[in-house]
């Protein structure tokens, strides 16, 4: 069974600084996707970034980038120039597209607080 582990329950960062959130996963599959979702206090689940396992290049979306280490099964999220609006729960998620209909498996989340 696939599992996703986020080892940092809570983190904090000063505004304008850079922070990295960790995620590791376990799978025997070779064809899969990884995601980071953001959940602000409004409770919405917002897709931040997506990485296809077959791509060696790390995904980036503006201030958000990932460090994808396939052999190590590691998928960390880096937030640059942190803003107060980045305060949220961040969930790492895994989807095996080999036959599970894209069902997402989530980690337990990291609560990020951005301090002024």
């Amino acid at each position, binding site marked *: 069974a696939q599992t*996703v582990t986020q080892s940092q329950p809570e983190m904090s960062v000063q505004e304008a600084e850079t922070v990295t959130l960790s995620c590791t996963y376990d799978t025997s599959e070779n064809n899969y*996707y990884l*995601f980071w*979702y953001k959940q602000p206090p409004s*409770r*919405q*689940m*917002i*897709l931040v970034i*997506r990485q296809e396992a077959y791509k060696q290049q790390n995904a980036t979306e503006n201030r958000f980038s990932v460090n994808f280490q396939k052999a190590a099964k590691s998928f960390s999220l880096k937030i640059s120039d942190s803003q107060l609006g980045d305060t949220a729960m961040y*969930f790492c*998620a895994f989807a095996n*597209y080999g036959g599970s*209909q*894209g*069902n*997402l*498996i*989530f*980690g*337990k*989340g990291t609560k990020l607080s951005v301090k002024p």
Partner: protein
Amino acid sequence: DAGITQSPRHKVTETGTPVTLRCHQTENHRYMYWYRQDPGHGLRLIHYSYGVKDTDKGEVSDGYSVSRSKTEDFLLTLESATSSQTSVYFCAISGGYNQPQHFGDGTRLSIL
């Protein structure tokens, strides 16, 4: 934003009563999902649908049933609600099994 509406947004009910949550989409997406979110567990898949009348179980399906008679609606039913089903329920949709899922705003369900 993806056109996903969950109803109701909040509900309080008593143990043993039936409860139905509705997810409505305007994107004509094939795939729809129901998750529950509990403290310390992240989101866990309850049931999903890959087409009209095509559904399957997820990780935590016991005590839940679903139906999808139209592309746009996916219903989640608790036949006899229990306090352990107090949670926040999210619906998600995607255009294909290899496409990202987009989530509704969630339903907070409290069972007393």
